[in-house]
């Protein structure tokens, strides 16, 4: 990616923010993340509206993944990571002490750039997510697996080979399997980190269709460095640069009338 070297070095300019009119389900306020000496996320305030698709755009290394991973406390695994600020999820600060992280992660599913299927059968990949969540009997698990695979628009393609290894699926199918697996845990929010960047165009469109369908029921935050994808899919868009959220608002506004010069440059393809 191009380094935006020509940009003015004003990392802490406040975000140009048009607040959503919908109810906010995840509300990040003054979120900072640093790894050792590197300040990867700078004072980001970003409201994610319920049952909408929110796109996070920006060049590589601008902090999009770092933001997403802060939401489900994945930075807990990185000893050097320091996270400050507030993330309200249904009103509760998930960065606060005493939070049940396992439960948080069940309520907030995450899909990664590279599909991660487990070396097990297709059925098992989804079923064991259900088992991890616990509380379901054998027959109910099979039902949940089918339901999740249908939700992920994968059922028709795999129903005759549920017992075969998931590793044999195509990349796009694997990614939808990952989505099915996340859905099987019955989350409220889905965090997708560049879910299509490893996929071919046809598979990408399928995943995009799926995301659009899922937005009826779930809240979706999707990281993408594909502008068209953000434009096609999302209701709200945020633009990250060098760890700061530069602009956030309804996608149409951000795309057609960006208010920050840097957003405009990005949207018009002048860099990144």
């Amino acid at each position, binding site marked *: 990616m191009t380094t935006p070297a020509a940009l003015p070095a004003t990392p802490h300019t406040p975000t140009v923010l048009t607040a959503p009119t919908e109810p906010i389900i995840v509300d990040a306020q003054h979120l900072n993340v640093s790894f050792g000496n590197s300040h990867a996320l700078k004072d980001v305030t970003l409201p994610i509206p319920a049952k909408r698709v929110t796109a996070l755009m920006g060049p590589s290394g601008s902090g999009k993944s770092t933001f997403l991973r802060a939401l*489900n406390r994945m930075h807990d695994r990185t000893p050097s990571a320091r996270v400050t600020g507030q993330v309200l999820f249904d009103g509760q600060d998930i960065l606060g002490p005493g939070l049940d992280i396992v439960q948080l992660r069940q309520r907030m599913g995450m899909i990664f750039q590279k599909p991660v299927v487990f*070396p097990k059968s297709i059925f098992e990949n989804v079923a064991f997510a259900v088992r991890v969540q616990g509380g379901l009997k054998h027959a109910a698990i099979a039902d949940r697996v089918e339901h999740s695979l249908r939700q992920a628009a994968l059922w028709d393609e795999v129903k005759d080979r549920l017992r075969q290894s998931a590793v044999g699926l195509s990349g796009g199918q694997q990614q939808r399997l990952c989505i099915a697996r996340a859905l099987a845990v019955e989350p409220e929010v889905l965090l997708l980190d560049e879910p299509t960047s490893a996929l071919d165009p046809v598979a990408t469109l399928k995943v995009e269709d799926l995301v659009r369908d899922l937005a009826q029921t779930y809240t979706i935050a999707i990281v993408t460095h594909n502008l068209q994808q953000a434009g096609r899919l999302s209701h709200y868009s945020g633009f990250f640069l060098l760890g700061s959220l530069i602009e956030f608002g309804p996608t149409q506004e951000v795309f057609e009338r960006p208010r920050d010069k840097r957003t405009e440059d990005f949207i018009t393809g002048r860099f990144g």
Partner: protein
Amino acid sequence: MNEVRSVTGAATSAATTHRRTRITVRGMALGDFVLQNGTLLIVIAVLALIAGVFWVVLASSMPTIHQFGWQFLTNQAFDPDHNSFGVGPAIFGTIVTSVFALVFAAPLGIGAAVFLVEFCPRRARTSLAFFTDLLATVPSVVFGLWGFLVLAPWMQHSGEPWLKLHLGFLPFFVGTPRGVGLLTAGMILTVMILPLVIAIAREVMQIVPNEQREALLALGATRWEVVRYAILPFARVGITGGVILALGRALGETIAVTLVIGNQANKISPDLFATGYTLPSVIANQFGEATPGLFRSAVIEAGLILIVMTLIVNVLARLLIARMGRHHRVGGLVA
């Protein structure tokens, strides 16, 4: 091939108008030629050496093979005075002590590796790992001495009486506590192969991609579930390989076992307090006195049997790993 090279060579060096000449043998650069044929030669030499050793061992075992046939494997006496030889108790002792070591070292070692890789704080991990690796470098004679001077007396006065008192209803803990014997040998072997199991299990767990862990955590899995569903299945093939490697080591371990097993076996019994023999300890004990003839042949045949046993274990291990690998290998690559 040579032509292709010189053409591309000319193309790239055209600008500098200077061309490297190289000596070639049958179209191959001299260095490559020497390397390829030299290494082939070394491989052939090694194979010839192995075949030669096997041949000598086999040939030198012929007297007892003719004399006793298969009975050599089951005969309980190893009695030079009466020219009666058999290694039944030694085979039994080899298997019992090795399997004993495996049964305890495998879960302990895998558990320790899981702790080191998944739960241990980073700083402690390095030093603990270093310590377990260090344990692997302790010479076996040192383990043997420690077993003989420390473990065996302790077993005689504390360990074995305790076992007898509390688990005496089992046929394993019924004899007279002597300190030296199958149990102590098995324990020494356990300690000796433990670092190997830990090291290999740790290594294969470390190469489990981080994405696997995070994908599971993102589903709301606990760290224990991550181990159970992502780490262990993923590392299973490698761990199995490591465990069997350790078994191979236990089967062949000589000096430490010889020092603590008692080197006396009159009959095969399930009593672990009893003194015993293993194939390597028979060889180590008897070789000095083995006069040419049946006696020497018997000692060498013990070695032959040990070779065959280790070979069988290794072949089985490869088959097992190949079978498990077929199921999981692709998974490792994709995920």
